């Protein structure tokens, strides 16, 4: 009864292409965002911020980046973590070497650097597809991490290869506590998610999906395959780069190149698959799922009194099984399940 769209008529095309065409959705999302900004800081504990909310938001952003590339443009990537690393280390070096560099600009420039690396390693996608491309992105993964480890300039000649992120300060305001960092990350993620939504509902998004679904037809219609794919690589890597910088500055604080390893790339790929390929919302759902799952599992292991070493192995098994499960049963992931639930709700409680 409550979730009904009857009586909501669209009188212009601009209204019809709103992000949330149904009024209830719009209000619910606005309320949710308001809650995240205004209420959460008062109720969450520091542990909750730094162990769940901040990583959740950062991984959501990285998953969003990968989703643009894999879910929307159909180009598989196993090198997400490498792009995150580029973003983090570029931002670090901009902060270090340019006096008076504003931190937000450093994040953006970090993203731009990741973009450029993304374009470079995306070039092979013009000639190859599918798992060939997976091999090429693996090259990115190993090469970038190796480069950051072996070239001491990137880590400012730190003997251990570990960098310590500079203080986060915007217009004289210091972001020190987990709570403040959470608000910063939340703001950045909200803005970037909105931009991503805008892209996927306009021509650039349609060009990605066209290339994904049927590249020859896309070419015949006049999309330029090269430009389309490279734009996807650039935008996707930009998102990953910013996420990587936030990972260093707002989550872990000190970081070594090895932190951005293949395992992290896989994890983000899993978020995208479980959350839903080709869905902005799915990126968030997937990230939430993957962040929470180990916590829940270790709790279960703790309660049942099993040895601790079991947790990580069971985690691997559950991840693997879930990936297979979702690919078989619901390739569009949690996002589709959510949508199905909403469809049901439209009719509820009168099923006809």
């Amino acid at each position, binding site marked *: 009864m409550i979730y009904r769209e009857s009586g909501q008529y669209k009188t212009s095309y*601009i209204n*019809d292409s709103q992000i949330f065409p149904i009024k209830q959705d719009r209000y619910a999302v606005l309320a949710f965002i308001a809650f995240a900004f205004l209420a959460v800081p008062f109720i969450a504990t520091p542990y909750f911020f730094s162990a769940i909310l901040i990583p959740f938001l950062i991984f959501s952003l990285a998953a969003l980046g990968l989703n643009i590339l894999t879910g929307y443009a159909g180009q598989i990537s196993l090198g997400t973590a490498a792009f995150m690393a580029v973003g983090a280390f570029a931002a670090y070096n901009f902060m270090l070497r340019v006096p008076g560099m504003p931190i937000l600009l450093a994040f953006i420039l970090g993203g731009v650097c990741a973009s450029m690396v993304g374009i470079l390693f995306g070039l092979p996608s013009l000639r190859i597809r599918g798992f060939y491309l997976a091999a090429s992105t693996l090259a990115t993964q190993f090469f970038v991490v190796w480069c950051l480890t072996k070239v001491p300039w990137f880590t400012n000649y730190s003997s251990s290869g570990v960098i310590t992120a500079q203080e986060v300060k915007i217009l004289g305001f210091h972001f020190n506590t987990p709570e403040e960092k959470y608000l910063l990350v939340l703001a950045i993620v909200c803005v970037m998610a909105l931009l991503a939504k805008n892209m996927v509902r306009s*021509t650039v998004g*349609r*060009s990605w999906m066209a290339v994904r*679904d*049927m590249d020859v037809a896309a070419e015949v*219609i*006049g*999309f330029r395959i090269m430009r389309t794919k490279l734009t996807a690589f650039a935008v996707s890597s930009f998102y990953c780069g910013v996420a990587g910088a936030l990972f260093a500055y707002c989550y872990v604080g000190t970081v070594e190149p090895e932190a951005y390893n293949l395992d992290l790339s896989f994890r983000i790929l899993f978020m995208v698959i479980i959350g839903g390929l080709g869905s902005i919302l799915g990126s968030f759902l997937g990230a939430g799922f993957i962040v929470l799952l180990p916590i829940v599992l270790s709790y279960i292991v703790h309660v049942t009194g099993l040895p601790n070493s079991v947790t990580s192995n069971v985690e691997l098994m559950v991840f693997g099984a879930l990936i297979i499960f979702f690919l078989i049963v619901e390739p569009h992931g949690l996002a589709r399940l959510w949508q199905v639930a909403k469809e049901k709700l439209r009719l509820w409680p009168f099923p006809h």
Partner: protein
Amino acid sequence: MSDRKIGDVILKAENISLSFGGVKALTDISLDVREHEIRAIIGPNGAGKSSMLNVINGVYTPQEGTITYRGEQRKDMNTYAAAASGIARTFQNIALFSGMSVLDNIMTGRNLKIKSSFVEQALWIGRARREEMENRKVVEEIIDFLQLQHVRKTPVARLPYGIKKRVELARALAAEPNMLLLDEPMAGMNVEEKQDMCRFVLDTNDQFGTTIVLIEHDMGVVMDISDRVAVLDYGKKIGDGTPDEVRNNPEVIKAYLGAH
């Protein structure tokens, strides 16, 4: 039929030869298309009809021959140049973007009219927003024209075959093409669907003056709606002319009836 005016030759393919590895798909084919006409290409399976369309809009590059489109001669078309100069097409095996809605599929046909950059689109400001709405308006007109209103927001993967064919035509029309290449637009349709499609093709030609190059198996349809017909067999052109001329061409009769 209305008194539409058939103009000069706008597309001229000369001495086209195309082969894949050792297999010859097209041998020394010359073909011209006049402005505003409906030009059919017929022939048995494997005669090279689709290959010919693919050469015209640059999907395949022929080993020999040239293509002249609107006075510009090329050794080979490329797909982008073809699209940019107003050639649109549909495919034999439907080539819609299966993950997108009908509306989005048709909107992709407008992509060459979009001037705003992806940054503007991301910010959803000014030009990007305006363009989106202008194009949406054109697309809605096409949706009305092809009677697709009821499936506007449906993902194309869920549509029945006949409607998919129509969506593909809509996507091609969205580009407001000068020339439309239709690869078996009526294949696999029942009589009613064929009639609908015929009407849409004729209306398109009539209302927008679009030049149409059409491949079709149904002889009745071809002879009814085309101005001129070219006949291919084993990659060679064996006949060309008005439907009546072609019908009485002994070579064509031989190829179709299999008489020796």
